[in-house]
């Protein structure tokens, strides 16, 4: 974990910026009053002030992904320098190695998501958003964030192992696959605010389950020789 942070402060800074962006964007919506579309019969008014803070769940989760990208860079660096080869020779299997990097990215993400959530809660409370809503957002952010980081890390580590010339955090496929669950978490709670908690928790649970299954599979399917420089 320490090695990842030292290796790329850029992603750390990007993560902080994204955190601030997410907090500002979602909490600014509290100053917009309830909107009733004029001359249009709508089933119910859209209460942006109550629903938009849920936007921060997806945006802050994304910042968690940024924080953990250096871990994948480290994986590629260690592969090219022979560190993974040496670890294999000491008796570790490929799944032990993958688990180590996934654990590092999760721990890093939890630390930084906690910071993001505390900041978001403080800003929201100052702007008058209900504490109950803020607590829900905090829990959902950590749940979605951790599940996203898990999936992105496993995808990128797997793809980096399979590439002849691994590109580390620059390779987009792992990130794209990893953030696919972000879209339902981003959009559905705004459209169906009364089911926001259920939707986000379901997305988190499915993502974690898929990540675990993927981790166990790649640990078995990716041969040790793929971790050689």
């Amino acid at each position, binding site marked *: 974990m320490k090695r990842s942070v030292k290796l790329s402060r850029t992603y750390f800074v990007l993560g902080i910026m994204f955190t601030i962006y997410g907090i500002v964007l979602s909490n600014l919506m509290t100053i917009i009053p309830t909107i009733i579309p004029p001359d249009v019969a709508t089933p119910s008014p859209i209460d942006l002030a109550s629903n938009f803070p849920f936007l921060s769940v997806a945006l802050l989760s994304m910042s968690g992904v940024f924080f953990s990208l250096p871990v994948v860079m480290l994986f590629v660096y260690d592969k090219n320098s022979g*560190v993974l*080869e040496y670890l294999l020779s000491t*008796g570790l299997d490929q799944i032990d190695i993958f688990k180590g990097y996934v654990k590092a990215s999760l721990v890093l993400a939890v630390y930084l998501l906690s910071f993001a959530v505390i900041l978001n809660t403080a800003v929201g409370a100052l702007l008058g958003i209900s504490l109950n809503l803020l607590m829900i957002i905090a829990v959902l952010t950590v749940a979605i964030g951790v599940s996203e980081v898990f999936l992105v890390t496993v995808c990128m580590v797997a793809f980096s192992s399979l590439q002849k010339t691994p590109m580390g955090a620059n390779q987009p496929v792992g990130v794209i696959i990893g953030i696919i669950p972000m879209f339902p978490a981003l959009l559905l709670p705004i459209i169906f605010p009364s089911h926001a908690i259920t939707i986000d928790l379901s997305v988190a649970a499915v993502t974690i389950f898929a990540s675990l299954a993927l981790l166990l599979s790649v640990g078995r399917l990716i041969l040790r020789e793929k971790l050689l420089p």
Partner: protein
Amino acid sequence: MHNGVIMQELKLEEVSSGYGTEEIIHKISLTLTEPSIYVVLGPNGAGKTTLFRTISGILKPFSGKVSFDEMDLFNSKEARRRIAYLSHLNALPEEMTVFNTLKYYADIEGGDVEHTLDLLKLNELRNKKFSSLSQGQKKRVSVGKIFLRERDLYLLDEPTSNVDPKISKEIRELLIELSKNKFVLYSSHNLYEAREIGKYLIVIRNGELKFFDKIENVKTKKYRVGIKTLNDISSYLNAKLENGYFVVTVENPTEVAKIVKDLVAHGAEIIELRELDNPLQEFFEE
């Protein structure tokens, strides 16, 4: 077991191995029963690294079996923990200090960092960043990681390549001491080194085992060494002059040191020493 004593043994039985679908080493069978230094010689691309990776359990053999004390090396974590493998890469986190790079591995697999720093004389470098070291210093630190804890089998892939003679000598002395009760497989291109430190010679060529016996049983031709001097030394050296070199023929490379010492005592100004023929060269040729 023999008379109640557990005999250590590294055994390769008809082992073929490689990468993907490409077979690099073919049906190699070897049994090593004596703790010693086994020098593995072979030209580039012969399969030495593949052999070491297969023995260390990194590569799964396509066929055959590699075992150490009757434990299958690929499938047994316990067996693999008894092996130290030093690849030709440094395999150390470059962004850390020397102390922390060794501690990184000690935290994963156990071991004594302070002992390693003392053994490899690395204490003066302990707080230096690994990336700021010279190649020779990096190699010394890299060798250090295999001494963090005690193992039974050491696989060293060209440990003295790109290293100056002083450090090479220090590393060789460590390995000679180690080989008194451990198995040391040591790959090298340096033919003098092979003769100097090895007890057994294993020759790999085109992925096949070509030779395995004690080095003393190797029937070799003699060594021819060329000495270039600023002054004429023909009056006190029995040597032929060929292309500007006084050529001496010796049975053993260690005789050269005595010749040089005598020449210097007679006032010879030596500017170059060159190996013209090495009898082990025949193992590199078809």
